[in-house]
């Protein structure tokens, strides 16, 4: 609620600024960053005490104006219990370190990292939080989109702080349905197993989602907004599904995530908080002045999935195709500059600049096809035709 309050003020300012002759204005801004050095260690992940995989990702901070990523490989990554138990994680070449741990929920654990330059990074010991189940995941129709809300509670009133992330999956279709395809330099009717009109795609949540019942008399989270899909999104043009994962947090971990959210998602208006340093609970013991980003917590995970079919949504909602598309007529016999040109050969069969949609005939130009760019016809460029196992 307090979060809602600050963002509310942010919005009101935008609103007033906008109201006053639409004065407010936002422009790109790219200052020079040449004088700064970066390279601090970033540790992301959490200790999963159950039978699921515990996964940590090690990276280094890169300069804002560069495009590279800098995974940290070949480090020793160990989960250590307060009872002196140790669990080693296996690394890959992308900075991922994984293991199935099966820990004792009443113990405290920490993460210990030794990098190849022999620097030691150690987190604070953290308790294992048991995440309550998600009671319900439901949707509500807002005037500008689909809102997915979550209910949960902890009868013991001990959880209080929650974090969520989710994976959205949706069925969508391309702009034009192609009924022909090119095979062996020939254009044939497209068989069902080669259809490229309906596809599935998915995406991870990009924002930090937090909830707290700390100010409530009971540990109840009601109608917490998780995912939102604008009414014009193609995610909901056929069917949409989202699985939400719930993690219980300690108040310290909650503060870290909230800070991260404030610093990276909520800046840019009049009552901005000062960006503050993100530190977390991992420290470099070799060089205490070195900053390390990341918060290690330990908790079980709960999840719940919901499906929303297009029929459940208002009929006035129309998806906007993300690309500009036009279908052209392509013929075998077009006279350009006094010469006859076979455009079908050139643009459909040869180069694949266009994909055929449907067959058309012309008295003067011979056989032809209505065709369009692949991005307008082929949904597999943005997804897969393989139906996910959980789809219903």
């Amino acid at each position, binding site marked *: 609620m307090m979060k809602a309050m600050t963002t509310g003020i942010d919005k009101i300012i935008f609103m007033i600024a906008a109201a006053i002759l639409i004065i407010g204005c936002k422009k790109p801004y790219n200052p020079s960053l040449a004088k700064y050095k970066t390279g601090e260690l970033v540790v992301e992940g959490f200790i999963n005490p159950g039978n699921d995989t515990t996964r940590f990702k090690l990276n280094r901070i890169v300069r804002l104006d560069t495009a590279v990523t800098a995974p940290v490989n070949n480090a020793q990554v160990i989960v250590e219990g307060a009872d002196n138990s140790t669990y080693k994680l296996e690394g890959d070449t992308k900075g991922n370190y994984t293991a199935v741990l099966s820990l004792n929920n009443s113990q405290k654990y920490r993460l210990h990292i030794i990098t190849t330059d022999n620097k030691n990074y150690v987190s604070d010991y953290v308790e294992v939080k048991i995440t309550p189940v998600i009671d319900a995941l439901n949707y509500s129709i807002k005037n500008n989109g689909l809102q997915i809300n979550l209910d949960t509670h902890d009868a013991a009133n001990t959880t209080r702080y929650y974090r969520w992330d989710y994976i959205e999956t949706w069925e969508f279709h391309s702009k034009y349905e192609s009924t022909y395809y090119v095979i062996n330099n020939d254009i044939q009717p497209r068989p069902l197993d080669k259809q490229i009109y309906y596809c599935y795609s998915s995406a991870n949540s990009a924002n930090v989602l937090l909830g707290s019942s700390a100010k409530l008399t009971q540990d*109840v989270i009601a109608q917490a907004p998780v995912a939102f899909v604008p009414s014009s999104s193609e995610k909901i043009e056929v069917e949409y599904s989202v699985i939400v994962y719930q993690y219980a947090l300690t108040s310290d971990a909650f503060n870290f995530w909230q800070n991260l959210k404030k610093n990276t998602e909520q800046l840019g208006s009049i009552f901005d908080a000062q960006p503050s340093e993100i530190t977390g609970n991992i420290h470099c013991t070799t060089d205490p002045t070195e900053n390390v980003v990341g918060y290690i917590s330990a908790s079980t995970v709960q999840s719940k999935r919901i499906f929303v079919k297009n029929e459940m949504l208002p009929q006035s909602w129309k998806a906007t195709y993300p690309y500009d598309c036009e279908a052209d007529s392509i013929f075998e016999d077009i006279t350009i500059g006094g010469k006859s040109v076979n455009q079908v050969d050139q643009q459909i069969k040869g180069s694949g600049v266009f994909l055929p949609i449907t067959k058309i005939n012309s008295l003067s130009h011979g056989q032809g096809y209505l065709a369009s760019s692949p991005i307008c016809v082929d949904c597999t460029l943005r997804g897969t035709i393989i139906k996910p196992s959980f789809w219903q």
Partner: protein
Amino acid sequence: MRKAFLLFGLIFFAKFAIAQNGKSISADFDKATITQFVSDLKARTGYQFYVDTTQFDSLRITLHITEQPLAAVLDQAFKNTNYHYTIVTDQQQVFLTRGKQIESRIATGYFSNTNSEKNPAAVTNNVPEDFNLDKERPATEATVENKLYTIGTASNAVKGNVILSGYVKDIKTGESVVGGSVTVANTKTGIATDQYGYYTLTLPRGRQTLIIHGIGMRDTKRQINLFGDGRLNIEMQELITSLKEVKISEDKVANVRSIEMGVNKLDIRSIKQVPAVFGEADILRVVLTLPGVQSVGEATTGFNVRGGSADQNLILLNDATIYNPSHFFGFFSAFDPDIVKDVELYKSSIPVKYGGRLASVLDVTDREGNKKKFTGTAGIGLLTSRLNIEGPIDKDKTSFILGARTSYSNWLLSLLPEEYKHSSASFYDVNFNVSHQINEKNNLYLTTYMSHDAFRLNSDTTYSYGNKNINLKWKHNFNDKLYSVLIAGYDRYQYQVSSNTIPTNGYNLNYNINQSNLKADFTYYLDRKNTINFGLTSTYYKLHSGNFETYSNQSLIAPDIVPAEQALESALYIGDKYDLTPDLTFDFGVRYSIYNYLGPQTVDQYAPNLPRESTNIIDSVTYAKNHIIKTYQSPEIRASLRYNVTGDFSLKASYNTLHQYLHLLSNTTAISPTDVYKLSDPNIKPQSGDQVSFGIYKNANSNTIETSLEVYYKRIKDYLDYKSGAVLLLNDHIAQDVLNTRGKAYGIEFLIKKTEGQLNGWMSYTYSRTFLKQDDPNAGELINGGNYYPANYDKPHSFNLTGNYRFTHRYSISLNVVYSTGRPITLPIGKYYYGGSERVYYGDRNADRIPDYFRSDFSFNIEGNHTVHQLTHNSWSIGVYNLTGRANAYSTYFTEQGGAINGYKLSIFAKPIPFINYNIRF
């Protein structure tokens, strides 16, 4: 009455004549010529004799006198002749004439009639005024320039000084002229009238000409003949052509002559000429054009004076503390321009009677209502309208003034896209003041103020905030040398946030800060060299730092009530302005402030030398109601001196120490209406600071061009900063989330003003730096490794030009140009992937700057015709804000959108904004 008084005077006559002419002479003349006679007497008495010897060439004097006063000697010498004498005792002069006697004093009827029949020596009578200070004397009402006003009972025998006091008023409205100056022609003596239009001058007896300047008033003079202490009320004519000039000084020479430094005074006329964003005169925006005043950006509530934070300014409206001086998040200032008379900003030598804030005092004074007739003004703007009515309740004695403003911005919001359409925002404010003159010695003033802002975003959360102030002031003149002002007042600031979108989470949050004040201020004109100001102030604070309650029965919100805090801040002060010589003046004052943090309260005790965290609480003690939990006390020094090198060139220096017991908790760059105040307690120390400054003031071109240069260095201790992720609202243990910082600020300020002529205005340039440092060993975390870092409002270069050019009395144009270095920001320098998105990593706090700020505004002002007698007087103001349309960065920020980090620059008034405003005066 007057006769009784004279009789009383005459009784003393005999005694006094002896006392005055007690220097007895023994003389022996035998047919002496006038030349011999005069040189002999001159040698014996030291008096200068003025005589045309040719007129006396036939006179021979034979006289034998032992031990007689000069007058008796002359009496006998000229007995039965046509020769006369006149003694001007205080000048030690004797005029000898034939046929006619010289009147050494020009008196109103009574005495001159009697004197001509009397022996001329009788002229040397006097009334010992000094014994009569407490006697009721009606004030002389002086309205005519060419008339000679006699003050005190006529005499010419006494040397020395007398005290002249009185009120300067507007002849038309009866309002007092505040900040006017009363100066003695051809001397350096002069004084500014105080907030009641009152002045007191110590002057030598004799004939003087007083020159009176008043802001917006026609300059006038009064010829006076001073015989004794007295009162002279002066009425001035208003300048009908109100657009004549931009004045920001209370007197043409005040900047050079006054002892105070770092004081800027703005009257409402000059404020109204500065182009404003929505055409409505904005006091705070004009204050921002003064040297040494900065703001974080446009549309912000606060302002920063010489490196102080926004909450370090004491903002007073008729002596009442205003906690939030703006409406609409700073788009409008809370002061109604139709009611305000003037604004004074103290930034280096803060008078001893003010305290409790570190950086400055902004003193806003409302007008008094018209005491003679009912008048009013009305103004219509794009978003707001104003109305003001004033008039007498009891003619010449009691008057009222009412000012009200309201907004009607909702029509604008309804034009917005769907997203904002169901929003609302509105404000109003009301000023109501009554002033009453009980008698010559007693005046009562009642001032009240109320403001209210409310807004709601798309039916979501409703916010409202407001100020409420009431003040009763009693001004009492004990005598011409001593007067007092007693003030009892109550100030309140409150806000409320509520939401009921999700009924189970519906809440109401109330916050308020209340203060009850009692102030007694005395001014005592000890003698010509000393003016003493002393008094006592006491403020009782009660803060309800957050009542978080359920909105309805459905709500599961746990009510959370942060316990009320209370404290008493008192101060005893005395200051003396001492004129060592007419050119060298000292002002030294001490203010002893005592602060008591009072129960009921529960206070945590933290283990010494450990970070203040919940794990380090060793005890928690609960105190009973009104128990003094903690006392902070400290003397504050206010010292300044002025040395006049020449009449229009002076040097000034000052040193101040200050304490502040009330902290504003805000980790946003600008003040937000929902920021909370916190009283100093055992865990949070009061802020303290000191400042040393030095200035050079020079006027040129008959004082129409004023220049000044001031330098300052300032230190601040125990200013609060915040730990990462600090929670400020509804936090019972705020001490765990704050850090102590120290600050230092220094700068040099240039100001040049042209006060008269068709072209007038001011131009200022400031170079200033402000740094903070957080090296609290118990903090647990350090900002920038414990090194100094620039404060948010550290803008090294700042330039302002405010000018007005008058074509005729009806048409004028105004131009306002502002340039400053961009404010510091903390830049993101790196990026990393976390929580599903790319995130930014920030560099050192405030290590970079946003692009420089530049803006120019223009307005064209048209006055209606200048016929004095017409039903209404109209005026128009048409202009453009941000003429060049430069998109100044209000802030820059970096945000993750769709997995990519983009930098953005947010501008608020990024286009030229035209405005129009229509005003009516009736």
